[in-house]
Each structure stands twice: as C-alpha cells, then as structure tokens.
C-alpha cells in the first residue's frame, strides 16, 4: 500500500495553505506524490492524496489524467522525451526518436529491460530554435544529432 513519507506530507500541507483554495494544491501534490512513487501515479496514490487533502478522489483523478506530465505507467530511471512536433519534425525529431528507440532496443512508451530508460515522443517543449531536442527527466538537450544523443544516453547510468 502506498504511503506518503512525512516529508512529502509536510510539503503537501504547505501547498494546501499556499493558495486561495486547497484544490489548487492538487497539481503540486501530484508532483510530490509522483516523485515519491518512482515517477508514476496509480490509484493507490490518488486514494492516499484524497485522504490527506480531504478532496474527493474523483476530482484528483480528473486532474491526474488530464495532464501529460503525470505518468500513468511506470517509467525508467531516465525518461527520455523526444519532441516530435512541427519544428522538430522539420529538423528530424521523429527520426531522432526512432534512432534512440533502436539504440536502447525499446519501443516508444515502454521501459527498457534494465529499467533505466523510457522513451516517449512528446508535443512541443518550447525549444524549437534548437531542434531537434529531447528532455531527459528535468533537463533539456538541444540541437541534437543522432550521434550526440547516443553519446548522451551512454553517459546516463
């Protein structure tokens, strides 16, 4: 059964009083819970948050399922998100994603056998002038070539 750590509870409580209404704390709390649950969220997490926040679980679940940054499936240690929107597509973003999948021997949206990587294709990340690009966890890697991407991923243990 998923339980929030006391540190996470403290953070959630401070978010609950940070905004005009406690509902505004749902998104920040989902972030906190996601990082406590190895990068993804399931029903157990939703129910735990509902209990802590005193907000109906359906409301929290609606928010969780609406936003793409909350993962509905387990992800690898490194979540490689390759932009496939128009500016990147023009500059080879989709080919880059295909290259990375081949390199890591994994399908889009799936986790590598060693649980290190998940590769996803995502919509515009606001880095169109430095296309193609990818985001790995919190960091942007821009103006990539397939070779540069390969080297970067090799450095991620």
């Amino acid at each position: 059964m998923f339980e929030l750590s006391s540190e996470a509870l403290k953070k959630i409580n401070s978010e609950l009083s940070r905004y005009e209404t406690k509902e505004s704390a749902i998104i920040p709390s989902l972030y906190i819970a996601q990082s406590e649950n190895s990068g993804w969220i399931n029903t157990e997490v939703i129910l735990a948050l509902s209990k802590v926040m005193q907000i109906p679980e359906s409301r929290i679940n609606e928010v969780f399922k609406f936003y793409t940054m909350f993962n509905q499936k387990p992800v690898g240690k490194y979540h490689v998100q390759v932009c496939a929107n128009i500016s990147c597509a023009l500059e080879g973003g989709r080919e880059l994603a295909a290259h990375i999948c081949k390199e890591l021997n994994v399908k889009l949206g799936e986790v590598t056998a060693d649980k290190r990587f998940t590769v996803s294709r995502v919509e515009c990340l606001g880095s169109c002038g430095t296309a193609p690009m990818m985001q790995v966890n919190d960091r942007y890697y821009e103006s990539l070539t397939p070779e540069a991407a390969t080297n970067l991923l090799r450095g991620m243990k």
Partner: protein
Amino acid sequence: MPKCTINGRSIEVKEGTTIMEAFYQQDASIAHYCYHPGLSIAGVCRLCIVDIEGNPRPQIACNTKIMEGMKITNQSAGIKEGVKWVLDFHLINHPLDCPICDQAGECGLQEQYMEYGKYSPEMAERKVKKRKVVDLGPTVVLDSERCILCARCTRFTEEVTKTEELGLFNRGDRTEVGCVEGKQLDNKYSLNTVDICPVGALTSKDFRFRQRVWYLKDADTICTGCSTGCNVKTYFNKEGFFRVKPVYNEKVNGHWMCDEGRDIYKFVNLEHRQLKASIRTGSETFETSAGDATKKFSSFLKQLKSSETAVVLTGQYTVEEYQALVKSLKKSAGHFFHWNQNEVTEKAFDGLLLRGDKNPNTAGLRQVLEENKVGSDWKELETGLKDKKIKTLIVAGPENKTVFLDLANKLTLFSQAENLVWLSAAKLDQAVSGPKNFWHIPLKTFVEKSGTFVNAKGLAQKFSKVTTVLSEALTLSDVAALLTGDEALMVAEAKSEIAEAKIPLLADLHKRPDQVELERRKKNEFLYKRGAL
C-alpha cells in the same frame, strides 16, 4: 422585461431569461443534450446553436441571456447545417447498437437525429474503443462507448447529491466517465443519472433488458415510498409494472427522486399480491371474492359490540378512503388507531427528498382522524387486546411491506384479537393462526385508484388511477360501502375538507419538459415523419 423575436415570433421574457428557456416557454423546438434545467450550464454539446442578428458567430442558446431587441433564429440554413454536423460529431464514435440498447425508443440521440440529423454519415474511420459493461455500483451499469460526454451525470453527483463519485477522466476523445478504480457510484439518488443520461451509456441494473420502452405505457402518479410525495411516472404494460421515473414538480421534488422510490412498482405486480379473499373461521379456510368476503364480514360485524371493535389504519391510503372508512365504521367500531411504523424516524429528512416517514399520507390520515374526532392512543390498543376488551380488529395494513419493518411483531400483536380483518393488497409471508376468525381482503394499490395524498409539508396532491392490475380488489372506500351498504361511499370522492378543496390533478400541473422525454411528441410521430420523407 426585454422583448425579442424567436424565429420571427415576438415575445417578452423575464430579465435574465436565457434563449434556451425562451425556446422552452415558446414550446419551440431546439436541439440539445447537455442542457438540463436542474443542473448548471455546461455548454459543451454545442447543439443549441442559434443565429442572433448582428452577431457574426452562432451562439449557444443555453448560455446566452436575452437582451432587448434580439432577433434569434435556429431556422437559418447555416444553423440547420451546423446542427446536422454537430449531431454527426456526436455520432462518429457512438456505436450503432440501438437494437440491443436499452435507451432505444427514448434516446435523445435517436430522436434528435430523426428531427435534425444529416442522414448521410461520412465517417469511414475506425471508432474509438472504450470500456463496455462497466459495473459502476449497485444500481447503474456504464457503456462508455455510448457516452456522448454531456457531463450531466457528473454535474448531478457534483451539484445535487454532492457525493462526487463520478468524474470525466482523460482528455479529448479518450475522455471517459467513471469512478476511480475500486470506488462506486453509490448514493441514494444514483438512478437519476440514468434518467438524465441522454443516451444508453448509463442504464439501470433493475430495468435493463426487461422491456423495450415502446412496449410500455406510462402515467403519472405520486410516489408512495415516503412522505415527500414525489411526482412520478410509472411505466407498465399487460405484463405488469416495470419502472418509476420522476416527473418535474417545482414544489415537491424538482427534477429528481430517490432510489428507494424506484422500487414502489414492485409490490404492485401480481406476484406480490393477495389475489383472492381468504376467510378462516375456526380451522376451516376458504377463498372467495373480495366483495363477497367483505359482505360476509359485514353481517358478522352487526353482531359485534362497538366497544369491542377497533380499526387500525396505516398511512398508506388516500384521504378519500380514510374518510369513507372512518365514516362507515364510526358507529360499529369504538376505537380508531394510527399504526405509525416509524414514529422514531418520522421527522428525519436528508435535506434533499428522503424522509423518515415511509408512508405517503400520514398527514392525511391524521387530518381525517382529527376531523372525525376519533383516534386513540396506541397503548389502549395494546392493553385492550391483552385484556380482551378489544375482540375484533379491522386493520388497513401496508401495501408496501418492505418499509414496515415491524410487520411481523405487529401481526403477532393483532393476532391476540378474536377476529382479525386484514385489508391489504400485499400477500402475507406468514400464516396468521392466532385469531379465531381471520379475513384477508385484497385491496387495490396506489396505481389502481384515484385520490389525494397529503405530504410531510402539508401539500395535498390529487392523482388519477393509472391502470387496473387486479380487477376484483377493493379500495377502502369500496370496503366501507360494502360494510354499510351505502352506495354513495362507493364513490371514491367521499366528503372531506381536503378532498373537496380545489386541487389541480397531478397530470394537469405544469411540467417542465425535459428533452430526454420530449413529451410534446407522441412516440410514433417520428416514424410517421420518416414515412413521409
């Protein structure tokens, strides 16, 4: 009071009236799904588009307030074409499973498509797959593919019951209604979501697959499930009654009713009914007709002392029946008792509709007893039976046994009498062996008679007979007439302050139409129209 024109007709409306409300008031037809007068405005189905002169874009009628001088139309070519397309957008991912869908025949999608549709679908791609036969809870089943995401049910659980079990999860055309995994749609009003669902996405576990709706007739009456007196529509055919739905009454129940009330059709059906009168004298038991049994008791009654005879009444009958029975037995019965099965919880109220008093007419019974200056304390009955001072009991028992949790105890109590007359529509589960003589005379249920109920708020509501289920059953008025031989009492309208007051018949009360039912159209009208196409 702004003035405007709707499809060329000038009208004046109250300040703040929306175009949708004005269409309703005018009885003008307008396509829509998500709008429901009992819920907040969602404005998402985009079907109720209208042209307003001077406005470059079509506006939605449900969220646009009427301003002075507005010229509104939904008859322009652009709007008609637009509505056709919005209907097609609704349908591209909607399964064509009408033949096996419970909503067929009363489906908003079907009806509106017949009236406004394009008739030439152009969708050639695969439909979005979603969950089917999802068990949402004890009462409701969901078919997500049929759902058109009008958000009526989610608004209902958010705004009316405030239980918030339902949500719309995911986004775009992947959006699905539902509960969080492991949670259920479980509240006392859950079946209203089935009523307001304009398609067959939410269906009632109790009703699904039992009847095609075009084989059902319907008629309005009052719910007898508690003392709120919700206005309801009952659905039936020659096989019996199948369901109950709420009918709008601003003063009583608004648009809704509770789930408990939905079950009141069950005890009406023959399998739960006492079909024949049964008489037991000593050890000899025989069956006869209700009228004959009553007449037989009538001659028996003449030999009895009035001080040793008592009448027990439950709050399940009409004012007219109480009046007739009390008047006819006033001389031959010395005591009248009110059997109040839920004295303790009587005043309970959940704030919405559900009341602790599970009788439709407790207030009416009290008024009749008061008017006739009869009515004794329940203690007197208990001691009277114990001391054998009361030897004969005439009991108008419950027709809805399920809400009389003390029925078995009370029957034991009543069985101390020497002679027991049990007047009730319901079949008894146990044999009554205590009294020396026992009569069970079958009565009519609430759907088989006209009359008046007075609800907990003191509002008297007059309703008409729906249909006949068991022709030989009697009303209490019939019983009264047979007991005294006074034919005048046979007429259900016995003299009574309440019964004489000018109360409009329920069926004549103003009802706000809901698009799901589209009452203004006869059921076969669209078939007729199609034939003319």
